[in-house]
């Protein structure tokens, strides 16, 4: 009999399509938005990890950046705290294999034969190529002579090379391109590092650090130092040592904050985890709200449906339905509609995430499905319970005699 009632409830809800749709709407929207948020959130997290690794943030690299404060905040590039001497001094640590100081300018205009482009200019030393794992595809790398003589030579990232020399990249070698007002000889072309989400590792030009200092930054203060370490294991200790060392070199009093940041892969992992925790918290909040909203929708639509279907309930009671049978039918109706709504929501969310996958990072997994099934069941049960109880309590005689009572 139980099965027959379940079947009847399926059939009956199909015969009241308007109520059915109204009941499902809240759940569909909730689950849909949740699915897309999860997909985009997970995708972004994966992307962040990928991008940071792409920076050369292996476990055995740490970065010292100019200026204090929060780790990953953009700040003006005119912070004057870090020097080339700081970088060289770090070499005295036995765990430091190499140091790569740099200066950088974001989106600087470059020109060649009427073509213009904006790219990132990095003033670097030969060490930078090693520490950052850059390979030379064509031509030559920077060397100490370029640095010593402040030569106007440059290495082009693949994106820049393609932009300025669309027909034949190899033709770039030996040509003079204009960076701002100055002409630079193209000394080499970097091997492709690849696209990391929206961050293009090949959209850059490397020039000697000294040249960058005199022509563009007009100062010798550097922006960051990548430090290659002997091992990744003791990185936390190394970080402490480097911090203490730099504070001493910068003559900071104990009350003064750091005027530099030491970032390690551990910090990266921590930040990513923290942001994903924040996302989870947001998600939980959204879930609770949508749980409430869709629950309230279901309860109200169901109450309306039940008062609309009072006569039907009365008839069924007369034909042998117990209060319990009526209750079960309506409760089951709420549960299965809410489940169906959840599944539709997941489907739509996954579909949207799928179509967005080329525009923004998304991650498609089965998690939203489990979430949706649980959510659908919970919302259906909780919000259907009261209306179902009310349906069971409908007085069959009043319902049957209708307007006459």
């Amino acid at each position, binding site marked *: 009999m139980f099965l027959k*009632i379940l079947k009847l409830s399926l059939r*009956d809800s199909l*015969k009241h399509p308007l109520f059915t749709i109204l009941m499902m709407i809240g759940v569909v929207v909730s689950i849909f938005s949740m699915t897309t948020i999860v997909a985009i959130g997970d995708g972004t997290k994966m992307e962040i990890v990928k991008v940071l690794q792409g920076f050369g943030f292996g476990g055995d690299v740490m970065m010292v950046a100019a200026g204090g404060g929060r780790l990953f905040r953009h700040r003006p590039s005119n912070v004057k705290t870090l020097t080339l001497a700081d970088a060289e001094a770090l070499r005295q640590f036995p765990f430091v294999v190499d140091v790569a100081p740099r200066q950088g300018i974001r989106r600087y205009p470059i020109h060649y034969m009427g073509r213009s482009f904006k790219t990132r200019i990095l003033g670097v030393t030969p060490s930078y190529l090693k520490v950052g794992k850059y390979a030379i595809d064509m031509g030559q790398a920077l060397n100490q002579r370029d640095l010593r003589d402040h030569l106007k030579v440059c290495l082009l990232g693949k994106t820049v090379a393609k932009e300025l020399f669309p027909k034949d990249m190899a033709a770039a070698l030996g040509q003079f391109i204009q960076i701002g007002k100055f002409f630079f000889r193209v000394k080499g072309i970097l091997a492709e590092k690849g696209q990391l989400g929206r961050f293009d590792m090949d959209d850059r030009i490397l020039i000697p650090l000294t040249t960058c200092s005199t022509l563009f930054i007009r100062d010798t203060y550097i922006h960051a130092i990548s430090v290659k370490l002997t091992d990744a294991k003791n990185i936390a200790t190394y970080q402490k040592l480097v911090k203490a060392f730099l504070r001493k070199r910068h003559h900071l009093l104990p009350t003064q904050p750091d005027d530099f940041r030491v970032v390690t892969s551990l910090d990266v992992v921590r930040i990513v985890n923290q942001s994903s925790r924040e996302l989870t918290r947001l998600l939980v909040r959204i879930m609770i709200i949508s749980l409430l909203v869709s629950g309230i929708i279901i309860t109200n639509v169901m109450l309306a449906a039940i008062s609309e279907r009072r006569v039907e309930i009365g*008839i*069924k009671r*007369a*034909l042998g*339905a*117990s209060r319990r049978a009526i209750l079960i039918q309506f409760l089951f109706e709420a549960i299965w509609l809410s489940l169906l709504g959840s599944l539709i929501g997941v489907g739509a969310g996954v579909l949207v995430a799928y179509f967005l996958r080329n525009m923004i990072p998304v991650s498609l997994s089965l998690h939203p499905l489990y979430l949706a099934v649980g959510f659908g069941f919970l919302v259906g049960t909780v919000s259907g319970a009261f209306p179902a109880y009310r349906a069971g309590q409908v007085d069959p005689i009043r319902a049957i*005699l209708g307007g006459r009572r």
Partner: protein
Amino acid sequence: MMPVISLNQVEKRYVSGSVITEVLKGVTFSVLPGELVSIMGPSGAGKSTLLYILGCLAYPSAGQYKLDGVDVGTLPDVALSRLRNEKLGFVFQSFHLIPQYTALENVLLPTVYSKGSRKEKKQLTDRAKELLDLVGLSERYHYLPGELSGGQRQRVAIARALMNNPEVILADEPTGNLDSRQSVEIVALLRELNERGRTIILVTHDPEVGRQARRLITIRDGVIQSDEPCS
């Protein structure tokens, strides 16, 4: 022969706040299997109230009601519902078919609440079709109630009442919403069912209809005024 229905000093009152409405004030009678009884009386006399107590949709406030030997007043809702499902068939004034169901689906509805699995579905469908044939609707299995005339709808309702092969059919003004020609047909159908042995109790306002029964109970102000065989 044991009566299928027996009432002993049945009372029914409705209490709403401080207002107490005494509807039935001690009704005693019994009905033997195979009888065709009509209940008549002025509006508000308590006819419907009596019928729905007979139909196990309401408990008597006092007195005893035995259906097929079982004292109904002491049964819980589930058991009472089973009695309705197995022993009783209802026919209403306004037909009360479920408008979204076809004629066949309406006739099959009582089986949802019966014991037994869906395995006999084919058998049940065959029986429902036979009943529709019996009430003269062999061409209308898949019509919705909205596509049927009043008389046809009441035929579907009668087929539905017969579906679980009940002991008693209870009809509350079954001809109340029908024109005279359709009324005659419905009453003829009920008489025919009675001739085949079905116990029928019908409430009516229409003396023409009332006179078709073999026994006429008149109630007034909640008490039986007369209970006599019809000519």
